[in-house]
């Protein structure tokens, strides 16, 4: 009876895997809090050799770690998290006396303006600080290895999904959710926009940036949706810059703490395009946000708006690069930040 049940379950898993394979889904490395913590430990243990990347999904997808390693001579550590704030991670790095390397932060004005808002980065950093002093060879570590093995071999777990999600959205769905983002072992993510459904993905991103419901467009035509979104963008007003400005001193204190230990901090505003860029310019105008920030920090701060080489790449969803252009973009970024000249002794001034 038990054996019969087990065989039924195994047959189900096998059929699901075959169906996913037939639909072109590949297994991926799970990106979990454990993998993030391992990178966070590297950020501390690599000392001056660490090139620590902090930020959101743009840092995840746009930067090629191999290129970065080659051009800077430093060891990249990917600490970016999708949809997160850089603030808790930068604060944690500033508190950690072992962190003496180079930190590159993907700067987003809204995460400073929404300083206290809960986000995943806060949880991850708190978990790291709580757990880093504890014993590491334990069930959590073995579970990570086993779950990692399962995740990287079974398509049902691809992209960090629970198999139920894979079943509903990739096996049973007439139009399966495409696998256009694949996580690497080093936590970087490769976005292949040739697999994505365009321009729907772009519209969804624009709508999400404004927190509007795309269904309110009441049309399925791309031109109609774009018109609806453009009208919504035109209504946007600049947000109050005062909450943003109140926290600039705290960011500078984090920078100072890292620099006092011999580390370096760089801020970069990564490129956006299309309506996503317009949204940013309307809600967080440069004069009220970026300029006061760049003027207040002793760290090297670069915005894509000032560097034509960083604007030369297509952003299919208005925010992220296709994986094919990552190396070229990374080279341009290294040059813009001045990381390639003398990587071990870069003078900020």
């Amino acid at each position, binding site marked *: *009876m*038990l054996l*019969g*049940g*087990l*065989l*039924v*379950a195994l047959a*189900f*898993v096998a059929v699901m895997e075959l169906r996913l394979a037939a639909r072109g889904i590949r297994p991926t490395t*799970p*990106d*979990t809090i454990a993998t993030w913590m391992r990178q966070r430990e590297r950020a501390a243990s690599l000392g001056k050799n660490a090139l620590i990347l902090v930020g959101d*999904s743009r840092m995840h997808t746009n930067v090629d770690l191999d290129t970065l390693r080659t051009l800077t001579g430093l060891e990249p550590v990917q600490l970016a998290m*999708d*949809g997160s704030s850089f603030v808790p991670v930068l604060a944690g790095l500033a508190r950690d006396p072992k962190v003496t390397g180079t930190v590159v932060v993907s700067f987003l004005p809204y995460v400073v303006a929404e300083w206290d808002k809960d986000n995943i980065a806060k949880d991850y950093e708190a978990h790291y600080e709580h757990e880093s002093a*504890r*014993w590491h*060879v*334990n*069930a959590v570590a*073995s*579970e990570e290895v*086993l*779950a990692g093995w*399962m*995740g990287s071999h079974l398509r*049902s*777990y691809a*992209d*960090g*999904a*629970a*198999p*139920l*999600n894979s*079943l509903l*959205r990739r096996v049973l769905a007439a139009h399966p*959710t495409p696998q256009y*983002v694949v996580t690497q072992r080093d936590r970087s993510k490769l976005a292949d926009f040739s697999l994505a459904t365009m321009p729907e*993905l772009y519209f*969804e*991103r624009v709508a999400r940036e404004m927190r509007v419901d795309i269904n309110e467009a009441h049309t399925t035509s791309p031109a109609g949706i774009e018109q609806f979104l453009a009208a919504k963008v035109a209504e946007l007003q600049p947000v109050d810059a005062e909450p943003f400005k109140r926290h600039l001193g705290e960011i500078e204190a984090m920078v100072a703490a890292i620099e006092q230990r011999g580390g370096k901090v760089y801020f970069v505003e990564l490129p956006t395009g299309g309506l996503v860029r317009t949204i940013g310019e309307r809600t967080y105008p440069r004069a009220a946000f970026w300029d006061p920030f760049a003027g207040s920090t002793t760290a090297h701060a670069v915005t894509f708006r000032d560097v034509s080489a960083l604007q030369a790449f297509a952003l299919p*969803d208005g*925010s*992220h690069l296709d994986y094919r252009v990552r190396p070229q973009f990374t080279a341009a970024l290294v040059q813009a930040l001045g990381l390639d000249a003398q990587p071990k002794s870069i003078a900020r001034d």
Partner: protein
Amino acid sequence: MLFNSLTFLVFFAIVFGVYLALREWTARKRLLLVASYVFYAAWNPPYVAILAFSTTMDWWIARLVWRSQNESRRRALLIVSLACNLSLLGFFKYGNFLLQTTATLLAAIGVHYAPPAFDIVLPIGISFYTFASLSYTIDVYRREVKGDWSLADYALFVSFFPHLVAGPIVRARLLLPQIVVPRSPTRDQIGWGFMLVVIGLFMKSVLADRVFAPVVDQVYSDPSRFGTLDTLTAVLGFSGQIYYDFAGYSLCAIGLALCFGFEFPDNFRFPYAARGFSDFWRRWHISLSSWLRDYLYIPLGGSKGGELKTYRNLMLTMLLGGLWHGASWMYVLWGGLHGAWLAIERKLRGGSSAPLQGALVGLTLLTFVVVTLTWIPFRAESTATAAGIIAGLSHWTLPLALGPVERPLCLAAMAATVLWQFRLRDRSLEDAFREVKTIPLAATVGACLIAIFLSSGGDQRAFIYFQF
């Protein structure tokens, strides 16, 4: 190491395989002892020392108690054992809580006291193995159990991994005799044991963690965002979550022990079909409620000292029972409410312990509703959250913030739970399954395993976040 983890699957496969391969009983027992300590060490290796210390101390004291004929000495030894066990439990589980409470009380009279911030990590399962251990020394003191077991056998009783970290609280009188007598699991025991594990994992991983927990977590994290229907769903959902979480884990423990040939008692017996609160506590976390009855309520005097003393004893037992669940006044409040319900029920019954009579369906539903509402302080992390939930239930507001699938799924699962428990209230799970024929049973096992697989792993935000 949780039962619903891949690490445990590998661990169990190795231990079970070696156990069956060994023929000699002492070797099998040593294997289980070593495996149990590895199981515990997998969480935090240094804390194995606490388990070993507590075990050795209780074994040694009980041995002295057993051998001594001097009543004063025996009593003194018992007090030493109680003091050591409760001190360990108090330090690790209630240390910070006591300091914070002291600071709050002092602040109320204008004295500022900033307690030191100890980063004490609670040794997992300490409440369970302390109570198991305590029951042994008390039973030896009462001469209800022998006190001359070998240290290795006693250590296996305390640390046997199926019950070590989350119960059931197995008594020495039940498990030690099984450890002494050589045993080999029968084919039926292994089959039913695995069946219980599958059902338990289904209850825990699918129902508790995937159906109920997401709804409960959302609403309890910010009750003000949710309307009456969503709040009601979460309140009912927590009844489901806590039951399936704990009963599922208990079933796994019972099933795993059975695979090795050991029989544990039931820990849950369809509690949401209870008729009244005393009936509820005969069905909910039975190993704890019977422990509290035998080692706290009855020694306090039980119902022998008159009406007022009986109420006092009931209330004290339930308050401490609440505190056992965790270092928070919310648990104490939950225990106090149950103490009050038991006292009211006793008053209504006129002191009789006979089962309540009346409209059985109505009585069952009334008990379920009150038990469900009483879970609110248990789940809420603060009185403010509890008040927010109660406010959400008290006046009708419309916002429907839960997902379109979450609410009906949660409500349907809870309705099915109550109906299922009501139908089976006077039977055992084993009886119910015995009537099912082989093919439907295999299909049920297959369906449970598929559901466990589908709900396994995965970042619930994955599909949102991978689109950035």
